């Protein structure tokens, strides 16, 4: 387990009581956040705790459960080499506040999440499809999208 910043969870819990839920994980501290608190937690992590790199923004589709999507953020502190994973649950027509104003590197991963899962990020400067043609129908990485898409052969 990446314990290069061992008190980060305590510091976060003391700053945001009742907003975070710790999740058991084998590789790095993982916390579940509600959608309304997401931006505040992220701003605190970036500015006060120096997690200056947002390595990845990705989505997991847990179809039968509600809310369906889980947006996962992997953050990195390059001086202590500390990692942390922040997750938040989102329902199918809900929008997520974008972290692009905080980390410009989250621009393309959020566009990819929009393209492949259909999640709308509020506050994103340029939310449009990135991998698939602009007139594509549907969001392929959802669990109810067939593997071969709408292909005939």
């Amino acid at each position, binding site marked *: 387990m*990446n314990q290069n910043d061992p008190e980060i969870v305590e510091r976060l819990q003391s700053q945001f009581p009742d907003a975070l839920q710790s999740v058991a*994980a*084998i*590789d*790095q501290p*993982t916390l579940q956040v509600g959608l309304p608190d997401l931006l505040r937690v992220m701003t605190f992590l970036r500015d006060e705790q120096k997690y*200056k*790199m*947002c*390595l*990845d923004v*990705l989505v*997991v*589709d847990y179809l039968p459960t509600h809310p369906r999507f889980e947006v*996962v953020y*992997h953050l990195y502190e*390059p001086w202590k*080499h500390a*990692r942390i*994973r922040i997750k938040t649950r989102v329902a199918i027509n809900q929008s997520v506040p974008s972290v692009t104003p905080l*980390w*410009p*590197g*989250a*621009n*393309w*991963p959020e566009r990819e999440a929009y393209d*492949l899962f259909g999640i709308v990020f509020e506050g994103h400067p340029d939310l449009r*499809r*990135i*991998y*698939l*043609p602009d007139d594509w129908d549907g969001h*392929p*990485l959802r669990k109810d*999208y067939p*593997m071969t898409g709408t292909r005939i052969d």
Partner: protein
Amino acid sequence: MAADKLESTQTADPSQTMIINMGPQHPSTHGVLRVRLELDGERVVNAEPVIGYLHTGFEKTAENLTYQQCNTITDRLDYLAPMTNNLAYVLAVEKLLNLEVPKRAQYIRVLFAELTRVASHLVWLGTHVMDLGAMSLFFYTMREREVILDLIEDAAGVRMNPSYFRIGGIAYDLPEGFHEKVHAFVKDFPRWMKSYRHLFEGNPLINERLEGIATITQEQALGLSVTGPNLRATGLPLDLRKDEPYSSYDEFDFNVPVRSGADAYARFWVRVDEIYEAMKIIEQAIDKITPTGPYTSSNRKVSLPPREEIYGNMEALIHQFKLVTQGFVVPAGEVYQAVEGPRGEMGFYIVSDGGTKPYRWRARTPSFYNLQTMPLMCKGGLVADVITAIGSIDIMLGDVDK
């Protein structure tokens, strides 16, 4: 010459700018990258990369393959350094399984990871300098790469996309005579590298085309999630092999080249220095690998048994059958494991639901994030410097488009 970014004798009035499309079929974009250039004469006002022309749907495909089968598609992500992707993936699954890999297999993995790093940097060097105008270095570096591909073919059977690593160790043991071949390679390579250095070291043409071009500050690089040599060229010594060692890298003695110029020149020399450091690791690794010994984990629920055992032992046969047809079961959970690839941090995030196929398979490919720096690097420069910028970021379209 160093692009004069502050002053421009031409106006940047929107009605005066010209939009030109570069690619996706273009000899210098290193793949199917399309760049939408907005030009004011010869100066770039905006350079926006348009990607997606190689989108392969890896993540969706992987949800249909068993964990062992997924190993074969990881090669095709960053196809110039296939063993690195393999390594990141098998380490991630081994973490979920809590599987112990024998030391000898770990050293062999380090050896091949560094061989592919050298091969990838050689291709980068050849194509980057070819873009700047010097064609002959391309043929020389590719010739050295052929020697490395011969070594990989000896061990794995295929030149490119070998999928040599398996969950638990490696696929086949090293062949006879492999140690001698690697020793010969390590002995010959510095001599060739020295003669190639004469072509670009101190060459005023290359220096003029690289110094001061495509700069990006450390602050901007951190915000844009840049990793790898691009970040080390801004002065931050971030290298996962030293900071969070995996696969016994902490037993090897090597340096991490860092420069602070933050321009194309600094990135160029960080990568050239990395070739020498990788050769050091290869030399140490081949001495640590014993000629015979275990090359895969002894946990028969995950690794295939050796062929001799299958012919005599009933249990081994059953294990072989179940592993090949059904695959092994990975306990439920999630993991993110990253390695230091030639382009940056290559990571895999795997969510398992307790079955034989991954529930969510995500590749954190470095070039996808590194390419976001292009608009910053090209703004205000000349059109020719766009080519320099693309070469110095060292993108790989398989990584970018997944």
